[in-house]
């Protein structure tokens, strides 16, 4: 609209990183229709990592991933939620590489930088937020699926969560049972799976985040986020990347919009990369 907008971008270029403390290189995937890639990249930088933009059609997906320590699939409406949320994105060329890397089939890198898990069988840490979570379930990296919210409404609210599992690559900076508040915004957020799968998730401690203070969307067993058995893949419906900077987060006890509870997700993975296993 005005020249001021271009002179004062609210969200910086991925390359204009702040001080990178850890050397952790974290890819942020963009599909057509992805909305929150810039927020996720900013969260990575605020956590001390370096955010690397990944385009969904990247032809050399495996090579691109081998230079990274973790990947975030951010929220939005990839491919307009056509067919089912996340269903088309799952077949993007880059997703095949992410699925392989998350399962531990990583190219052992000669280019393994500081802190890179190069050469080990450990799966690439992958975080799916909202639509990213839907893509991870469509990819069968995580069990279950999402259907429309019970009340059919698009929800946009600050949401209290309990961190149930603090041993994953993305939650180790939290303590088990800790309550955090981050924004929730979705229409297809009702987590469903058959009873057997739900029992297994509960039994193996794979439920990672649970809604507290009321179930907003009808998700089975109040599940807001889950992990795989290895703890490297985590998906959640709420948006930790929107609660990383004072002034732009949810209201907190300290004051309006001062909540930064989401930052722990990103510092967790940076710490995982820097420190190996907990």
């Amino acid at each position, binding site marked *: 609209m005005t020249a001021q907008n271009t002179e004062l971008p609210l969200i910086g270029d991925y390359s204009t990183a702040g001080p990178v403390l850890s050397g952790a290189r974290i890819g942020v995937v963009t599909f057509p229709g992805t909305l929150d890639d810039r927020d996720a990249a900013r969260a990575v930088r605020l956590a001390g990592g370096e955010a690397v933009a990944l385009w969904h059609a990247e032809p050399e997906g495996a090579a691109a991933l081998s230079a990274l320590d973790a990947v975030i699939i951010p929220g939005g409406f990839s491919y307009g939620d056509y067919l089912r949320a996340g*269903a088309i994105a799952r077949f993007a060329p880059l997703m095949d590489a992410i699925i392989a890397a998350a399962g531990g089939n990583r190219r052992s890198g000669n280019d393994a930088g500081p802190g890179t898990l190069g050469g080990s069988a450990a799966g690439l840490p992958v975080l799916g937020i909202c639509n990213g979570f839907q893509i991870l379930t469509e990819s069968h990296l995580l*069990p279950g699926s999402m*259907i*429309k919210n019970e009340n*059919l409404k698009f929800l946009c609210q600050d949401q209290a969560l309990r961190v149930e599992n603090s041993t994953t690559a993305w939650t180790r900076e939290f303590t088990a049972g800790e309550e955090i508040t981050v924004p929730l915004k979705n229409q297809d957020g009702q987590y*469903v799976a*058959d009873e057997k799968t739900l029992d297994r998730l509960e039994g193996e401690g794979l439920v990672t985040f649970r809604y507290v203070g009321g179930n907003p969307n009808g998700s089975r067993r109040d599940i807001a986020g889950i992990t795989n058995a290895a703890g490297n893949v985590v998906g959640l419906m709420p948006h930790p990347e929107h609660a990383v900077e004072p002034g732009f987060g949810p209201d907190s006890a300290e004051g309006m919009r001062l909540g930064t509870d989401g930052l722990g997700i990103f510092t967790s993975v940076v710490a995982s990369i820097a420190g190996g296993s907990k």
Partner: protein
Amino acid sequence: MPTIVVDVMPKPEILDPQGKAIAGALPRLGFTGFASVRQGRRFELTVEGEVTEDVLAQARKAAEELLSNPVIEDVVNVAVLTESAQDESQSA
């Protein structure tokens, strides 16, 4: 051109919020004869040339792997649309 129809429905045990909302709207418009509604989707795959057994097998595979999500949906029908049914739908 011949057409293969694929019908996908939410699994019976999965709550169908959209169907529930439609069921709620029907009596408001005076349609009181229905106890419940479930909403699915129909895909029409147009085939160039003959519908061979191979093409039909491809349609079944696509129905299971892309058109439906087996966690929440069932493929309830994969069938070739007959000429007469096609004519009917065009004249309707």
